[in-house]
């Protein structure tokens, strides 16, 4: 993975955070259960999901939050630091089923997106604030949030 460093000077209010596409599958949800330790059957068992009043297993809110973390850490690069990440779970998302062992069925693709809302220097830190969100195929922001990052400053290097 070739990594390009983002600098404070590269960013203005309104700059778009490089979008990140994600596909949630039943398999990703099971991996997430293992990775996060959240084994709530709401996310993998049809009959349990039905008993909780959702049609079928839903994507973990925390997985969507982690996607937003991925969005930000990719964007700020190794030299940046994520200071704050916040999101709210507003809408439910349903994973794609699997067609074969490795391929998901056709279906929804989610996009993690963001825009810069503010940039400033505070305590010698070059700070950038962003609105971020996960958007489903219908364009609905099911997981809106915000992030604050510290970026390196080019002039500081010379």
């Amino acid at each position: 993975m070739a990594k390009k460093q983002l600098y404070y000077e590269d960013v203005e209010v309104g700059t778009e955070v490089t979008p990140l596409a994600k596909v949630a599958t039943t398999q990703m949800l099971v991996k997430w259960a293992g990775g996060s330790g959240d084994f709530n059957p709401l996310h993998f068992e049809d009959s349990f999901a039905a008993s909780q009043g959702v049609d079928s297993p839903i994507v973990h809110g925390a997985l969507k939050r982690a996607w937003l973390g991925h969005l930000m850490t990719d964007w700020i690069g190794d030299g940046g630091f994520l200071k704050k990440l916040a999101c709210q779970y507003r809408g439910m998302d349903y994973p794609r089923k699997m067609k074969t062992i490795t391929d998901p069925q056709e279906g929804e693709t989610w996009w993690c997106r963001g825009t810069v809302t503010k940039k400033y220097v505070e305590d010698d830190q070059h700070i950038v604030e962003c609105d971020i969100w996960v958007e489903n195929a219908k364009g609905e922001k099911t997981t809106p949030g915000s992030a604050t990052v510290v970026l390196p400053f080019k002039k500081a290097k010379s």
Partner: protein
Amino acid sequence: MTEGSAITDELRSMIGMATEPVIMEVERGAIRRYADAIGDPNPLFSDVEYARNSRYGEVICPPGFFGWPLKRGGMMELLGTIGGALFRAGVPRILDGGVDYEFFLPIRAGDILTSHGKFADFREREGRTGKMLFITMETTYLNQNGDLVAKARSTLIAL
């Protein structure tokens, strides 16, 4: 407190209630499994060689991951204690409303974290389907040097 408020005296008495400290070990394999579960191939989370040569010097955690607790407990246990009180208050269903993280220091594989969680606040709102109770929980994470590495404020919605 108005008649029929979801914040019963029983619940009010739980504000500030804290967990036992939870010890969490940050292991490389757990970080790798977590990053794999997000679908995040960032070598800082999985490639020991790459991470050694980075400014972190070791594999680090993706944001929001703090390793695995050595023993069960923590916020899940605290939630268990509040379950009955929520039921008696007429708001037995719990939804995850979101989380707000503040990160102060990177968390490296090999760190031993201690987390402290507590109920910080209860707020009430009338929703479309009736009473809603917003429960705010605060968790702080310290590393083995006693430095604050992160804070989380999560919101649960009881209805």
